[in-house]
Each structure stands twice: as C-alpha cells, then as structure tokens.
C-alpha cells in the first residue's frame, strides 16, 4: 500500500519464497499432481519470479523458524474469529433502525517494520469490527473507526485496534 522503496536486490531466501508461493498457486489452480503439469508449473513459476524479481522483496519480512506454521495457524484462527464477530456486529448496526454509529478518524502506531507485516496488519484491521485502514505512513496508520468511544487518544486506539493482531503477527513476520 505504501509505495515502499525496496530497490535492493532480493536475497536468495526471498526469491525461493516467491517461487514457492507461485508454485503453490499453480498447484491450487490445476489441482493435480501429474508429473507433466508439475514440470510446466515449475517452468511458469520460475519465469514469473524472474519477471517480478524486484517485487519479491515483499517476502523478506517473513521470519523463518520452526514455529512458523503454528504461528500462521494461530493468526488465521484469531483472524477468522474476529471476521465473524465483525460481521455480526456490522449486521446489528445495519439492521437497527437508529443506525448506532459514531464514526471518526483515529491514528494508531504499529511496531511492525516490514512492508509485508504492515500489509497484513492493515488488511486485518480493515476486516475486523468497525475499522477501516485509510492510510499507512511508515509506522502510523490512519483508521476510520465506526464507533469511537469518547476521549480516545493514539495509545488507547492502538491498544483497542491493533495490539492483539500485532501480537499474533509478530510470531511470523517482522
């Protein structure tokens, strides 16, 4: 979202990650483990990654460790629960005749440093109860909050909106 200026050549690890992601997407799209299809898929993935090599710097935010799958699963579980909760909340607001909303813009501060981490955080915030990421500027996120409690400053907003997500995200991303 922010125009991040990563022009440095990506490391081998990030290129391999991009290759893995492209290959995974191919596998999901074809849905077969046939040898020939796999070979073509590998070819296509290599060409794609070579063409988009500068963009693959996005993946250098991932922290590789043995806990990576567990952390991702924990995050996904928390995220899906928050998504369902967000929608029930939104349905209540839409269906009640008085339209109980008090919208305003607030700012929060994040401690994630990599573009990938901030992208995931911004996406999570957009999909969870009553909040919409409007702008990401370095560590400051501007957020449109549909029901702002009275007397909210930046620290209270940070605690209420993005502290939980950050805790889960920091398990696998910088």
């Amino acid at each position: 979202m922010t125009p991040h200026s990563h022009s440095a050549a990506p490391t081998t690890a990030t290129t391999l990650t991009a290759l893995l992601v492209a290959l995974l997407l191919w596998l999901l799209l074809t849905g077969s483990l046939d040898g020939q299809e796999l070979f073509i898929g590998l070819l296509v993935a290599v060409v794609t990654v070579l063409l988009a090599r500068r963009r693959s710097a996005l993946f250098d935010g991932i922290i590789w460790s043995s806990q990576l799958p567990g952390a991702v699963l924990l995050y996904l579980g928390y995220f899906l629960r928050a998504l369902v909760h967000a929608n029930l909340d939104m349905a209540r607001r839409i269906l009640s005749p008085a339209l109980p909303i008090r919208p305003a813009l607030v700012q929060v501060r994040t401690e994630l440093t990599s573009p990938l981490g901030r992208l995931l955080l911004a996406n999570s915030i957009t999909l969870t109860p009553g909040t919409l990421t409007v702008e990401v500027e370095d560590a400051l996120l501007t957020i449109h909050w549909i029901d702002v409690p009275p007397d909210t400053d930046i620290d209270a907003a940070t605690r209420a909106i993005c502290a939980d997500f950050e805790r889960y995200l920091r398990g696998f991303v910088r």
Partner: protein
Amino acid sequence: MNLLGSLLLVVGALFCFLGALGLWRMPDVYNRIQAGTKAVTLGTLTTLLGVALIQPGWWPKLLAIGGLLLITNPIGSSVIARALLRAGVDPWHRPEADKRGTP
C-alpha cells in the same frame, strides 16, 4: 453434505445482501466502504465453503479464489478510502458529537 453446503450458500448470500443493504443505509462514503467490504467478503468466503461442501473435488480452486479475495478485497477498499482522504473528502460526523479524534 449437500444440505449443509446449501445452508452455507444461504448464509453467504444473506451476508452479501446485508452488505448491499449497508451500502444503501450508511450516511457517507467511508461507512459505505466499511459495510460493503466486510459483509461481502465474509459472504463470499461462506459461499465458497458451501460450494466446496457440495462439490468436494473443487476445493483447491476454491481455496485459491478465497485466498486471493482475502488479500485483494481489503486492499481495494483501503485504496479507495485513501484516495478519498487525499482528495479531501471529510468523513461524516454525528451532529451532536463532533470534534473528536479528528487529526
């Protein structure tokens, strides 16, 4: 399995409908983006899950659609919101409670 899948289809369609209703009822653009993007994203995911239950062989492609949607949809609404903010559109305030948290 077929029955459960159909039930999920109904739930997904209901959320899509709620999203469209929110689009209609909300007072300004930012709130419309909120209502639209959230409800419709969950509705689509539920629909995809329902289709996966009806036709179990299709799950890889459905998973790909769901994953791409989950990434692109929030970014899309975020980009619209940012463009509006930069173009100078002020968010709507409830009349009796103004001047709060606005930068």
